[in-house]
């Protein structure tokens, strides 16, 4: 029963770490892209003004 | 009347055969696909017979699977070449621009790939027969049926995925990754059937029906890629 418990805990832990890890990675990529959009929009406005 | 028609069934046949013929001619000169496959296959056969030194009993159990393993991996080499050869001289671009049904290009390529694979396989049977002392030709008709049906399914998937992989950065790796999982059904049946043949067991009972199933698989996985090949070729 002891090994069983360890496996049970490990299975749930690993799976949830996987899900959370992926969600976090998505969140950070999203943030980076939003910042990039902001920068690009500024650049676009800048070059439009200078035309 | 003499121009190459772009539509219709006879045009389909003509274009496919034309493409296959082009590949045959090119191969006759260079022999690259063929030699690659046969030499590689032979080396694997030799290495395996050193590595395992099977008894007669073991050989009869293993060689069925071994032979298809070799067919698969040397086939990958051949399939890869069938499209890299095109990209080398921008032939693919030429094919794209030709006023032909893209599906016909697929069928033509399939035909040439299938032919090369089958020829190489027939030749590769010889070293296996010799090195492992097994008998493939007990029921020649069945052997041919297995070879043709198995290789057809493999070539059908291999041809379209070779075309897909030709557009990627790691094509030598993408092709087997795409093809192996998907041709597993055909591979499983082919291995089972070949092993039975080698053990001298008859392929009766359900086997003709299984062969029919594989035929359906082959036809289906020829039609599906034919249908979507245009998407693969487009710019």
């Amino acid at each position: 029963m002891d090994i069983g418990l360890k496996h049970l805990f490990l299975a749930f832990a690993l799976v949830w770490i996987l899900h959370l890890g992926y969600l976090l990675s998505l969140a950070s990529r999203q943030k980076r892209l939003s910042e990039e959009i902001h920068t690009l929009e500024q650049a676009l406005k800048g070059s439009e003004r200078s035309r | 009347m003499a121009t190459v028609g772009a539509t219709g069934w006879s045009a389909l046949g003509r274009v496919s055969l034309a493409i296959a013929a082009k590949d045959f001619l090119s191969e006759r000169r260079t022999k690259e696909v063929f030699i690659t496959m046969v030499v590689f296959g032979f080396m694997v056969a030799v290495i395996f017979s050193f590595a395992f030194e099977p008894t007669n009993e073991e050989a009869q159990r293993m060689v069925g699977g071994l032979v298809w393993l070799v067919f698969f991996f040397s086939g990958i080499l051949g399939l890869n070449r069938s499209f890299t050869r095109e990209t080398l001289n921008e032939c693919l671009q030429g094919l794209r621009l030709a006023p032909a049904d893209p599906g016909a290009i697929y069928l033509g390529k399939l035909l040439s790939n299938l032919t090369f694979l089958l020829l190489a396989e027939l030749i590769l049977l010889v070293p296996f027969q010799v090195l492992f002392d097994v008998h493939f030709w007990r029921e020649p008709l069945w052997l041919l049926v297995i070879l043709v049906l198995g290789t057809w399914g493999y070539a059908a998937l291999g041809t379209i995925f070779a075309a897909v992989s030709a557009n990627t950065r790691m094509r030598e790796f993408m092709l087997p990754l795409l093809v192996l999982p998907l041709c597993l059904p055909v591979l499983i049946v082919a291995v089972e059937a070949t092993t039975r043949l080698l053990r001298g067991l008859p392929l009766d009972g359900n086997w003709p029906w299984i062969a029919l199933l594989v035929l359906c698989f082959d036809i289906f996985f020829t039609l599906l890629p034919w249908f979507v090949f245009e998407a693969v070729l487009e710019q």
Partner: protein
Amino acid sequence: MSETRYDRLSRGLFVLAVVLVVWAWYAVFVQVPTERTMGVVQRIFYLHLSSAFVALLSFLVVLLASVVYLWTRKPAWDWIAVSAAEVGIIFIAAVLISGPLWAKPVWGIWWTWDARLTTTLILFLIYLAYLLLRYYTLETARQATLAAVVGVIGFVDVPIVYMANRWWRTQHPQPVILGGSESGLDPRMWYGVLVTFAAMLTVGALVFLQRYRLEETRHAVSELRRAIGRLE
């Protein structure tokens, strides 16, 4: 979709997911009875089965989105396809992790080549190939189309792979019977199954939404880049 709609939907899904997941944990660890022969470890089954269900559903979405994309060539369908593929791979990974961890203490082996496990591994490989193909395609404009072709052919083949493996198993019967689900579940166990299903489905939907949003943002970035490029 506008930012605020995304945020509101995400927040809603997140709250729902947390509620359902906590409920599922309570159901699985406290309420559901312990299985007689396998003991505590059997509780992995709830996680395992529901992950498999969500994964298959995701791959079905990939198939449908790929077909529609090839038909209409509207980018949004490609975004759906790739998001569903990534979600699917995560859940299949969960199946492949929970499976062996359950199998080892119960049946003594980490792995066996029965039909279900083999097909799960194959599914994983196919969609790994799908994602790698997108990553490695030389011309980004073609990524979507090529991937869609793989998406369609891949999914259609999977049931055939499963059946072929089952047939093969009849030729080479296994000494150990690796069952995925128990025949004749205690009704209290069905309750556990349903709650976990609901929880995993919500988690899947949440992840899908985030991934879709990311893809849409990526598209906006490349559009902006192109606009700037045109001005210079």
